């Protein structure tokens, strides 16, 4: 990896006390900006330009992020790039952030090896870049939140509680159905009402049923806790340096989601906590798909992110100062509007753009140096720079990238994407969700992994290649240039999902198709997310044992063969003998529940279990030999029966089948118990009777001798 300091940290500038009233010991606030999304949501657009540089209301997204960081008081920012790093670096070098007067010193760190947020943070740790608490954001976060309050709370918590709290996540209240809620990011959060500590964090997308670990909430012992579904993750977090260390320690953490879940699951072991801060007035959202792009753009135009507004020209670019007039119409200098054309509302038009006569434009952003013909209707269109649109074109909720040419009579239905340099038309109607690009979708498969490593040269190379293939006039029009990236109406291929994802999940018909893309982000929907590989194996082993026994039952396999199979499983998953026994016990005891449901009565339960126990007694006997084995076995039984103590009659049959012996049971019973529940269990009438009977039987047998 190569480190490049774009703005050499001006020692004179940094060493000088910026504010006299600031505490001498207080370290400057640092931020880690990840200028890569590590997914392909924006393909094919991001084949030519990294996501952080895509224009949002005519300003690159990364500029919004840097403006947010600077205005919230960050004095040093590390920008990590991977995909098209050189372009990002070039952009930053030209921007106001790298001027010597910038209050926020920006360092660009590039490496082709970053594959996830985890890699970046591990590198932060390896290079020891952060000295104290830092902000962690992505390069596509748009926000005006003032984090100073959250930061103060975070510091207070850390000073009070000996660095137990490692991270404060920032959320924005927005009820379900809010436009700015990203459906991919729907989350359910349980928190301690007073300390704002996060107890449970789960992505909720496409989940119909939710498993909720109440135990964990109750364990905390708090008087009140909240379960919230009205929060929008702003993707801004205040992290302590420990976060980077934790990523290093747990090399399997890839995303923030992994980290949060891993931390919460291992909370008792590691003793780390995560807290949250819900902001009231600020705005914060991440442009994670085109639907969010649409929403955030429109929020910017509607001034929700004030004081970051188009006319503020916060990026300080020459000639980009625009004027704001009624109905949120913004114009940069040199805009010309033909006779009879109307800019209805929420319109931003870039410099030197020429618009013809009788056009109707609403909720639209047009970039610089575009030419738009007569009788054009634009609604929710996002048109970037140097686009040519001929007469009689209609565009609805679509994205049109740089240098695209739309010939006359073209109609773009909703959610179309015309990637860089595409030519469309004339007189063609593109159906909903069409994605056109100069890159052939098949390139994808050819290059696959190398894709991430490729840079500008590669793009040129692929262009040559695409020339050999023929454009389909039915897809792009008789004079058109570009390939269609298949949409969901066709067969279920990989590209299909990619094209779907570009507009987010809101439109996707079946939620199953999302799973693929989600897995690539390394997240799991189910509550049974593995905390560590070890636990994973145990779980799988348990399932396998269950399957084996089921098969044994169905196909009437002999006990010897079952033992053989379980033994081979034991070696395959590297499970200790003790665990094998306990799992075996648990699986067998849970058998009736799985077949008949959890609500069966004691009588039913025993009647189902007894034949099974009789059948598999040799299997048990094979494993349960030493007195210690018996104790382990009983402990496992206890665990299962904690919930339903009436089923203890099973113990009796186990005794009768000579799986368990008298001494073992007595020993276990007299061992005493640790928790209230198991103590209560030992007071169970049925159990006491059985124990008493055992004792009497023992005495009488002694008497006989």
């Amino acid at each position: 990896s190569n480190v490049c300091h774009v703005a050499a940290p001006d020692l004179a500038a940094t060493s000088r006390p910026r504010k006299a009233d600031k505490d001498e010991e207080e370290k400057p606030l640092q931020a880690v900006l990840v200028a890569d999304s590590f997914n392909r949501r924006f393909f094919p657009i991001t084949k030519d330009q990294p996501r952080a540089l895509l224009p949002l209301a005519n300003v690159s997204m990364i500029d919004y992020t840097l403006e947010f960081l600077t205005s919230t008081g960050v004095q040093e920012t590390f920008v990590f790039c991977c995909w098209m790093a050189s372009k990002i670096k070039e952009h930053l070098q030209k921007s106001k952030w790298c001027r010597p007067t910038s209050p926020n010193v920006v360092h660009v760190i590039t490496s082709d090896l970053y594959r996830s947020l985890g890699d970046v943070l591990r590198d932060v740790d390896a290079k020891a870049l952060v000295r104290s608490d830092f902000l962690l954001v992505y390069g596509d976060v748009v926000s005006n939140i003032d984090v100073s309050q959250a930061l103060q709370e975070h510091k207070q918590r850390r000073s009070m509680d000996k660095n137990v709290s490692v991270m404060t996540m920032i959320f924005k209240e927005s009820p379900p159905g809010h436009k700015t809620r990203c459906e991919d990011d729907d989350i359910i959060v349980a928190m301690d009402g007073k300390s704002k500590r996060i107890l449970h964090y789960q992505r909720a997308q496409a989940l119909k049923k939710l498993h909720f670990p109440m135990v964990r909430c109750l364990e905390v012992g708090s008087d009140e806790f909240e379960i919230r579904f009205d929060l929008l993750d702003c993707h801004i977090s205040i992290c302590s340096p420990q976060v980077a260390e934790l990523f290093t320690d747990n090399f399997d953490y890839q995303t923030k989601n992994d980290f949060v879940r891993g931390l919460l699951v291992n909370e008792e072991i590691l003793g780390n906590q995560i807290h949250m801060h819900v902001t009231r007035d600020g705005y914060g959202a991440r442009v994670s798909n085109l639907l969010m792009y649409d929403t955030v753009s429109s929020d910017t135009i509607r001034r929700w992110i004030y004081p970051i507004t188009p006319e503020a020209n916060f990026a300080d670019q020459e000639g980009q100062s625009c004027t704001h007039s009624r109905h949120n119409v913004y114009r940069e200098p040199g805009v010309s509007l033909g006779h009879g054309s109307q800019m209805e509302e929420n319109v931003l038009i870039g410099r030197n753009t020429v618009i013809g006569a009788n056009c109707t434009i609403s909720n639209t952003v047009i970039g610089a140096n575009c030419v738009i013909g007569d009788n054009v209707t634009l609604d929710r269109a996002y048109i970037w720079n140097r686009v040519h649109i001929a007469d009689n074109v209609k565009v609805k909720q679509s994205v049109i990238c740089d240098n695209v040419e739309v010939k006359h009579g073209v109609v773009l239905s909703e959610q179309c994407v015309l990637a860089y340099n595409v030519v469309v038309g004339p007189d063609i109607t593109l159906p909903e969700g069409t994605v056109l690009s100069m890159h052939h979708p098949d390139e994808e498969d050819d290059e696959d992994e190398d894709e991430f490593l490729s840079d500008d040269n590669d793009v040129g190379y692929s262009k040559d290649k695409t020339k050999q293939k023929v454009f389909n006039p039915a897809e792009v029009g008789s004079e058109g240039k570009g390939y269609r990236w298949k949409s969901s109406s066709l067969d279920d291929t990989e590209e299909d999902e990619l094209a779907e994802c570009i507009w987010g999940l809101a439109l996707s018909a079946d939620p199953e198709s999302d799973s693929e893309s989600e897995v690539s982000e390394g997240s799991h929907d189910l509550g049974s997310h593995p905390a560590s590989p070890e636990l994973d194996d145990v779980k799988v082993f348990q399932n396998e044992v269950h399957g084996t026994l089921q098969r044994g039952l169905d196909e009437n396999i002999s006990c010897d063969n079952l033992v053989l199979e379980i033994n081979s499983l034991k070696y395959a998953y590297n499970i200790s003998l003790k665990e094998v026994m306990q799992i075996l016990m648990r699986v067998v005891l849970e058998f009736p529940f799985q077949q008949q449901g959890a609500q069966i009565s004691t009588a039913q339960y025993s009647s189902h279990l007894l034949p099974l126990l009789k059948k598999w007694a040799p299997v048990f006997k094979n494993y349960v030999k030493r007195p210690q084995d018996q104790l382990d076995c009983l402990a496992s039984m206890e665990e299962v029966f904690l919930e339903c103590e009436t089923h203890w009659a099973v113990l009796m049959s186990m005794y009768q089948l000579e799986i368990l012996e008298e001494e073992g049971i007595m020993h276990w019973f007299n061992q005493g118990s640790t928790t209230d529940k198991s103590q209560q269990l030992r007071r169970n009438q049925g159990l006491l009777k059985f124990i008493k009977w055992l004792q009497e039987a023992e005495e009488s047998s002694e008497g006989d001798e």
Partner: protein
Amino acid sequence: EIHEPEEVSVWFREGSSCCQETLARNQRFTETPVNMPGADKETDLSERIESFLSELKRCGSGAGSLRGSAETARETTALLRRITAQARWGNAGELMEIIRKEGRRMTAAQPSETTVGNMIRRVLKIIREEYARSRGSSEETDQQESLHKLLTSGGSSEDNFRQHFTHLKANVIEAINELLTELEGTTDNISMQALEHIHSNEVIMTIGRSRTVEAFLKDAARKRKFHVIVAECAPFCQGHEMATSLCKEDIETTVIPDAAIFAVMSRVNKVIIGTQTVLANGGLRAVNGTHTLALAAKHHSTPLIVCAPMFKLSPQFPNEEDTFHKFVSPHEVLPFTEGEILSKVNAHCPVFDYVPPELITLFISNIGGNAPSYIYRLMSELYHPEDHEL
């Protein structure tokens, strides 16, 4: 920055020594580096300008900016003094060019904050005057430019500013210091006049929160008993803060919603308001709701008094559409948490109202009371006509 003409470095040394002189007078700026090398000083200056610009850009997420315009005026003037002291210039023309250039950036950073532009114009005027004085010509002749003279002189008179005077810098800084002293005292000067306008047992109405009006009322309350009705000024409701602050001084205060202004007006003896800007035609650019208040006052023939320090006087006319309005986040009008409705409606939150001059009875500034028709005269005294456009 490496190649530095000899002459300029001479200027620097002189500059820092003047700085020292002025420092002794004004304790607040003692942190000014004295023996700094030239290049470092330059970066320090541009750094300060940058931070001022970014502060301006961010200032005021609500209706009234986080700090008062008096503070902005003072900060702008102090920064201009620093530019005068530290930037490289050889004659008045160059200095004016620098200040104009930085001034354009400052006004562009926050067009709604007109005091910044006003202070730049004041300083430009000071430079003109000092230059004229150094040359020995009376400033009066420059001031009284007749129509004929304006017509015949043609192009800019800046060609005349190329002459070099040794003491110009010191003089200009001196004059800017006087301006700063004047700015410090504006609120006191205005509130001193309170007893002439507020009489016992009167009912006074005001809207929102103006620091000048607050001081004005409190000053009057030291001697007289009167009743103040405060219109709350939704959606930011600065009126609530105003009422709380007045109550602490034992002034009988009532808060009313904006919608009740007309109904209550018949009981009111006087309306006293503050403003964000006094426009060149004598009109106001004041907080939203002021127009309603002014119309109600006119209907009931209640006198409307505007407390406005001189630095709020702007050569801007109300038809300059682009910079006149200021729209902030619609959050206060329709909270972000509302959910679905947000995508179906457009919410706007404008901050300012235009109040035409015919609705205003009297301006009270730090130099006394004036009728709106006299504003144009004050304007020509304060600013040079060539500086109206920066």
